[in-house]
Every structure is written in C-alpha cells, then in structure tokens.
C-alpha cells in the first residue's frame, strides 16, 4: 500500500456492493435463509450426490425448494436431530453429500456430540445448515435464539464455519460448501436483513474482504450485523471525522489472519461485531489471532454472556447492543484506548444497552398491560 492509499477512506468500489447501500429505506430486505434455499437447489443441479435432510422444518429452513426440485433426494427426518447428523454421516460414507437442515438451536444445538463423533472426527462430507441463528428469531425467546453455535462449531477440528452477511452471500456460501470436501457449518438467520452485496461481490473461503476503507480503526464483522457496522462507520465519518475500516469476515474458519493483522497494524484498533456470544465467537478468533501476533486494543460487540428474551427482532437486537449506535460507541472507546486516554471500567456500549434493556422492558410491558381487554381488567 502506498502512503497515499494509507489514508484511503470510504466504500470499496471493487466490492461491487449494492447501490444506495447506506439508504436504509431503499435497500432490499431478504432473510439470509432464502439464500440457502436457492443455493442448495443450484448445488443440487450441479451434483446429483447432494441430498437434503430436514428435521420437520422444511419450509422455514427453506429446504422446501430443494424438496420441490429433487423429491428423491430430500429426506424427511421428523424431529430427530441427533439421528439426522449420524444418518447424514452414514450417507456420506457411501459417497453422498448431505446437507442437514434445522434450526441452529437444535442442530448443532442438540446434536453437537453426534456432529463431533460422526461428522468431525470422521471428516464426513456433511454440511450443517443452521437456520434461525442469533437473536433475530425474536419472539420465539431464548430457547430458540442460538448464540453459542459459532463458538461450538469453530472449536471442532476438521469443521469449517461460514457466517454469511446477506442472502446473496448465503447462496454463495451454500454453493461453496457443496463443493468443499469435508464438514462445514453454515449459519443463517430468520429475519429479513439488508441485501447489500451483489452477485459480483468477491467471496472466497478463508478470505475476508475490506468493504470500507479507513485508517483510524477497523470494524470486523460477520453476518447481517455487518450492515450495522457499515452504518456505524458512515455515522462516525460524518459526525466525528473518524474513518473506520470495515471488514467482512464471513469465513470464521478457516480465518483470514493476514487481512486482520494488516488492519491491526495499519489502524491500531479493532472492534468486532457479531450476533453471537462474543466468548469464542468472531471476537474469540480475532482476540486469539491478534494476541499471538499484533496486540492492539479490541472492543467486542455481540452477546455478552447472557441469554436473550422474547421481543421483536429489532427490540431484542437493540436490547443487547447489536445495532449501529452501539458499534459507534465501541469504536469511540477503542480509539480512546488506542490513544492512551482514560476509559470507563464497563464499556459504554454494554452499560447503555443494559439500561436500554431495563427501560424497554418497562415501557413495552406497561403499554401492553394497559392495552389488555377489559375482561382481563385492562382498559380496552
């Protein structure tokens, strides 16, 4: 990089990101899981060995599209996630390439040991498609909000872990997973999220991409929260003149250490952002990588050792500090640390999410209680 390039800022045009990317009104919203449905059909067309197994969630995991195209290669498992993982391993031992689909809360949530024994140790060619991951499954509550999956899956030898950022990237990930040999975990979300990449956006396993240039700090994100990171970077630039580099780290494993280390060296401060437990998640990968190579201050946006609760997806995300204002707070804090300035003991992005959560619980429930019908002793 030349000296001039070091001061490069703004969106990376080579990434061919969507038009009007920063206009939240104009951008298209699609759930990432749709990309899985499309991707697995395309993969199925190219390879007759591909099979899809689903544990009674055919429509919502978007496995339905595959079932409609290839009924013979679709296997309805019923509510048997543990068996599904092992059955898929058995199929792969005969040369099939099975995708197992369920909610991430159950697969890998319930069948982690079967995945370890029958898929990871055996290096079986099975792909695990975890839908409804993260907290954006909202109203379903904590039992269905899978937040530990990234950590659970990335600690497994032989396993690859991909967390795509939008439906287009999910489609690419699915097609890629079908071509890879060996086990792979793909993570999707239920809720609609901005489609901000395009077919032309580069996507390669084990390669992070710089979506926005900047030199003051770097925000590394995986999953749909990457969009929030871009919004935060834009706000930081406009309001404070802070230029944040934004990196899409869809490939949790194998991880692109090179791009991260370069960012740490060039910007000297890192914020991670993910809709998963920060412990062991992307934050874990980044912290491990940098502590071994280029220690710089890190702040972590993600789920801070707690479970979620029911609410609209946006409410739950806000209550956990997963939206752009919190990312901006984390960025300002990490900058202070980089410059050796004093910071609060509890990070602002955590304390303000905590107080917001208490406030939200009160106001939302009060309103709802007030609106209860008269027969329940409400006012309506």
């Amino acid at each position, binding site marked *: 990089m030349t000296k001039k390039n070091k001061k490069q800022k703004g969106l990376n045009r080579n990434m061919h990101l969507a038009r009007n990317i920063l206009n939240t009104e104009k951008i298209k919203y699609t759930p990432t899981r749709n990309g899985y449905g499309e991707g697995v059909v395309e993969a199925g067309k190219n390879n007759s060995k591909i099979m899809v197994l689903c544990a009674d969630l055919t429509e919502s995991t978007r496995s339905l599209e595959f079932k409609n195209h290839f009924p*013979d290669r679709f296997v*309805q*498992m*019923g509510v048997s996630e543990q068996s599904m993982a*092992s059955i898929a*391993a*058995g199929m792969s031992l*005969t040369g099939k390439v099975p995708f197992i689909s369920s909610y991430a809360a159950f697969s890998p949530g319930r069948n982690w040991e079967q995945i370890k*024994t029958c898929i990871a140790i055996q290096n079986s060619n099975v792909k695990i498609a975890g839908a409804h991951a993260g907290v954006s499954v909202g109203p379903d509550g904590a039992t269905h909000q899978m937040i530990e999956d990234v950590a659970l899956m990335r600690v497994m030898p032989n396993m690859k872990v991909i967390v795509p950022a939008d439906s287009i990237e999910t489609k690419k990930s699915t097609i890629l997973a079908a071509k890879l040999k060996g086990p792979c975990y793909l993570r999707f979300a239920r809720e609609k999220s901005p489609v901000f990449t395009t077919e032309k956006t580069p996507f390669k396993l084990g390669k992070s991409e710089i979506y926005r240039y900047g030199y003051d700090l770097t925000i590394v994100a995986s999953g749909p929260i990457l969009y929030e990171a871009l919004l935060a970077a834009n706000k930081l630039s406009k309001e404070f003149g802070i230029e944040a580099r934004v990196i899409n780290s869809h490939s949790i494993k194998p991880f692109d250490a090179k791009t991260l280390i370069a960012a740490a060296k060039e910007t000297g401060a890192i914020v991670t952002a993910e809709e998963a437990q920060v412990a062991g998640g992307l934050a874990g990968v980044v912290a491990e990588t940098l502590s071994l190579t280029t220690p710089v201050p890190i702040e972590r946006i993600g789920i801070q050792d707690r479970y979620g609760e029911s609410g609209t997806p946006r409410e739950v995300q806000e209550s956990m500090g997963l939206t752009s204002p919190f990312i901006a707070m984390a960025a300002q804090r990490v900058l202070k640390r980089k410059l050796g300035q004093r910071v609060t003991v509890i990070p602002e992005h955590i304390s303000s999410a905590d107080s917001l959560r208490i406030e939200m619980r009160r106001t939302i429930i009060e309103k709802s209680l007030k609106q209860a019908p008269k027969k329940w002793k409400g006012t309506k």
Partner: protein
Amino acid sequence: MPNLTIGPRVRKPLHLHDKQLKVLENIATEIRVDLIDMLVEAGSGHSAGPLGMADVFVALYFHIMIHDSKKPNWKDRDRLVLSNGHICPIRYVTMAHAGYFPKKHLNTLRKFGSILQGHPESEKLIGSETTSGPLGSGSSQAVGMAYAGLLDKSPWRVYCIMSDGELAAGQTWEAMLFAGKNKLYNCTFIIDRNNIQIDGTTEDIMPLEPLEEKFKAFNLNVIRCAGNSISDFVNATEHAHGVSEKPTVIIADTIPGYGVDYMEYDFTWHGKPPKKGEEAINALHALRTLGGKIESEHE
C-alpha cells in the same frame, strides 16, 4: 419419498455344514485367545462384551458378509457398523484374522500412534467403516448407509451391532423410526443381549424387556437367537435376508465373558482386562481347554 422397493439380492445359501461349523468354531477360539493376549498387553479395554460377541463376529467376517480384506474400500462390500464401539477389541482381532492388517498390530491396541484406537476410528483403521464409542449413533449411521444404498439400488447390505445397554440412548429409537418408515430391509441390526452394562445388569439399570415387542412396535422384523451358537446366528441372519418388507433386528442372547469361566455373567468384567499373571493365565487356560472340557495341548 423415493421408491425403495427393489428385490433383495440373491446370495448363496448360508446354511452351515458340520465341517464348516467346526472350522468357524476353531477360529472363534483362536480369536478369543488373541483377544485376551491383546487386552493383557494393552492393560486396559473391555473383556466381557468382546468375548461374548466373538462367535457373531466370526460368523459375519468368515461366513456371512461379502467383503474383501485386501480391498476394504470396495464399493459393493457389505458394511459392518459397530455402534457399541467399546467392544472394538473383538472386531480388531477378527479383522486381523480376516487379513485386514498384520496381526502384529494387535500388540499396539490403545498405544500412541496405533491404528487400533481405544474406540474405533474409521480414519485410522480402514475397514472399520465408522468412528464410534459414544453410544447410540451407530444405528443412525447404518440406516443412513442403508437408505443411500437402496436409493442407488446397491447390492450390499448393512449390519449394525449394538449393545443392549446402548438401547437406553434415545437416538437409537430415532433410527428405528427411520428404518421402519423407509422399510430398510437391507439393514440388519444385531443386539448383543448380554444383560450387563458398566453399572450392573440392564434390567436393574434401565429395564429393556419386553424388548422384542419394542422393536416390533417400531415396524421391525425381530428374530431371537443364541448369540454364542454360530449356527443359530447364521440361521437367524439367513432368515433376516429373506425378509424384504422390513429391516430385521436379531436379538442375540450372549453370555458376557463367554469362554472364560470367572468372567461369565459378571458385569464387573464389562470394562477391564485380565491382569498380567494369574488372571491372564487362567483366562487363556479356560479358553484353550474350552472350560476344562478338553485337555490343554499347549500353554
């Protein structure tokens, strides 16, 4: 659902003549002796289950299964999935006798760098088909193979050996639902019904009876046989091959520790080997003399 109703492959009749039976029984005795030697050398590992299942393994590897030890990845081989991975010592010895690997490897059981891991790993021992140990997942892998086999109209069959204690794992019953639903007649489950597990007898710990009725209720064909009688087990298998509507489960009643008098029926021998010295000598003596029925020729 795909059409999975193709007819069963025609195999040679399995019925054993007296001479053949004698040969197999002798192999079983040799294998039990090697098993004890191997376990004593390893200093850890399971004794009761492997001794009890020696006859079933000999029948499968030396008579029933169509396989080639020189081509362990031959695509049309019959597959033997060992779900209760902890009895792998008997599989290892039988595979060595069948020519899958040189017998000297038996001396490496559970040692660092060995192809013979404490619980079997398919990546390390080619021909062991699956990695197992954590109980309950072998039946699922077996039905996965069987389903794929029928989908591709493959001629091979899948045999899956499970323990009785293992049946307490719920995943087994998920697999049985799947097997029954898809009429996986190319899959035969073999239950090592030796009535013991680590902590005691199966009926004390988590009663399984009436076991036949349980499998029948899952739409499986059930055959009960004497697991320490090679001819009875072979007959049961032949019967299973003849059923083309349902998967079959063979409940093989076996004696844990069979052949070593002081281990028989004793659950405390589930998970340990005989110690070097007197214990080992007594075990080998019991096996070589068939429990004192014949005089020892060599010791």
